[in-house]
C-alpha cells in the first residue's frame, strides 16, 4: 500500500454494521446512497458453510479508474493518496460508476451528482481516525497510514475481493485464523482454484 487506506481483519469482523452507521452519521448521509457497506459472503445461500464479512467503501486506489475516466476532472488525489471527489465539478454522467470495479462512487438522484468516501480527510487532518474505524467495536477495521505496509498476514485479495482492472486498491485483508481459517477460508480458496 502506498497511499492511505484500510485494513480489514476478517477474523474479527462480526458484520455488525457499526462502520456503516458511523459513516452515515459523520457525513450526514441519512438517505441513500451509502458510501460504506458490509457485504456478507455466504450468509444466505449455505447457512452451514463459511461466512465472513467484507466492510468496504472507496479503496483510494493507486491507479484509480474513477480519476482516470472522469471527463470533468472532479476527482483529485491528495498528497497522502486519498482520492477526493469535488461535487461542484461533477456532471452527474455516472461514468465513474461504470469504471470503478468496486462500486465505490454512488449516484445521488436528488442532487444529480456522484459522491463517495473521502476517508474522513477532514478528521485525518485533525489527527483523528476515520469515523468508521473509530466506531468498530472489534477493531476489525483499521486505518492504514500512507507508505506503511500492512504487517502480519495481511493480503491484497481474498475470495470475494479481486482487482480486475489493475486499480491497485489500498485495502488489505487479514484472513480468518485458527480453525475458521483452515476449515472455512481455505475451503473457499480451494473451491475457486478448482
Amino acid at each position, binding site marked *: 500500500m502506498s497511499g492511505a487506506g484500510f485494513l480489514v481483519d476478517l477474523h474479527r469482523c462480526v458484520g455488525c454494521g457499526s462502520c456503516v452507521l458511523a459513516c452515515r452519521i459523520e457525513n450526514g448521509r441519512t438517505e441513500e446512497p451509502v458510501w460504506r457497506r458490509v457485504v456478507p459472503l455466504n450468509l444466505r445461500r449455505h447457512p452451514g458453510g*463459511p461466512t465472513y464479512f467484507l466492510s468496504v467503501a472507496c479503496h483510494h486506489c493507486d491507479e484509480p479508474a474513477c480519476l482516470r475516466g472522469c471527463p470533468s476532472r472532479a476527482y483529485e488525489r491528495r498528497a497522502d493518496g486519498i482520492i477526493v471527489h469535488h461535487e461542484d465539478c461533477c*456532471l452527474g454522467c455516472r461514468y465513474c460508476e461504470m469504471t470503478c470495479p468496486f462500486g465505490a462512487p454512488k449516484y445521488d438522484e436528488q442532487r444529480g451528482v456522484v459522491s463517495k468516501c473521502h476517508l474522513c480527510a477532514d478528521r485525518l487532518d485533525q489527527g483523528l481516525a476515520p469515523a468508521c474505524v473509530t466506531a468498530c467495536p472489534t477493531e476489525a477495521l483499521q486505518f492504514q497510514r500512507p507508505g506503511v505496509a500492512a504487517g502480519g498476514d495481511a493480503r491484497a485479495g481474498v475470495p*470475494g475481493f479481486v482487482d480486475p482492472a489493475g486499480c491497485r486498491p489500498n485495502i488489505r485483508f487479514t484472513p480468518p485464523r485458527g480453525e475458521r481459517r483452515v476449515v472455512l477460508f481455505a475451503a473457499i480458496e480451494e473451491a475457486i482454484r478448482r
Partner: protein
Amino acid sequence: MSQSRRDAPPHTAEDSFVAPLAAHGTHVPHSSRSWLWKMSEHTPLVWFTSLAIGGAGMIAAAALRMRPDPAAPAVALAVGTVALGAALLVSTLHLGRKARVPLAARGVGRSALSHEILLAGATLAAGLTLLVMNWQAYPEVWARIAAASTAILFLLSIGLVYRLGGQRTWRGATVLLPLTTGLVCGEVSLLVIGSASIREASVAFWLVPIDVIVFAARWWTLARSASALTPRRLDASRLRNFSAARLLIFDVIPLVLLDMTAAAPAMIAVALGLVLDRWLFYALADQHTTESEIAGVEAIIEHQSRIR
C-alpha cells in the same frame, strides 16, 4: 459468531426477493432483478449511441463518395449531421447537472469520455462545414478526407469509452462494433438515395460480412463468459435469442434485401438493428462490484457442493 447470526434471515430488499426462490433450490442470478431497471437507466445512452453511430457513419460514407455524383451523398451528409446533432442533445438527458456540460472537456488527455465528446463535436463541425462547402462547389479532397477521418475516429472512440476493466462484456471485439455498424449504416443509406454509379461502387457487401465477423467474435466471448462455471448474471438463452435477432436484423436481412436491390427496406432493417445492437450492449452490461464478485464465489461454492 453464533449460529443464529450465521443463519439470520435475509435483511436487504434483494434478499427478500431472492430468498423464497433460493430456499427452494432455484438458481437465482444475483442481479436478475436489475435487468429491466438497467434499461430504463440507460435509455438516453441507447438513443445517443444509436443516433451518433448512424449519423457519423453517414457523414463518413458521404464524405468519401461526393464524386462523381455529389447530390445523393449531400442528402446523406445532411441527414447524418442532423442525426449527430440530435444525438448530442439526447446525450445530455442522462446528466445529473446538464448545465455543467462544458466541463466535460477538462478531461482531455486523460479521459476516454472527454475524447469521445470532443470528437463528436468535431464530427458535427466537419459535417456542417462539408455541407456548406458542397453548397458552393465540390468540396476539396482534403476536406472530405478530414471529415471522414474525424467521423471514423469518433466511431472508434465510442467503443474505447466502454473498454473498462470492470466490465466483462464490453471488451475485445465489442470495441470495434460502433465502427463497423456505423460504416454499414452509412453505406446502406447511400444506396437508398444514390445513383447507379454509387450502387456499382458500393462496399456494403464487404462491410456487412466484416460486421458479422466482429459481432460473432463478441457473441463468442459473451457465450464463454456465460458458461456454467462462470456464475454471472448473463442468461444463456436470453443472450442467444437477442444476439441472433440482432445478427438477423442488422446483417442478414439487409444483405438479402440489398441483393434484391431493395435498398429502402434494407435501410429500415439496418436502423432497427442498430437500435437493437445498442440496446443489447447496455442490457448485457456486467458491472464488476464486490457484491457481484461475492455472488460469483458463492455460486462456485454451490457448484462444488453439488458435484461432490
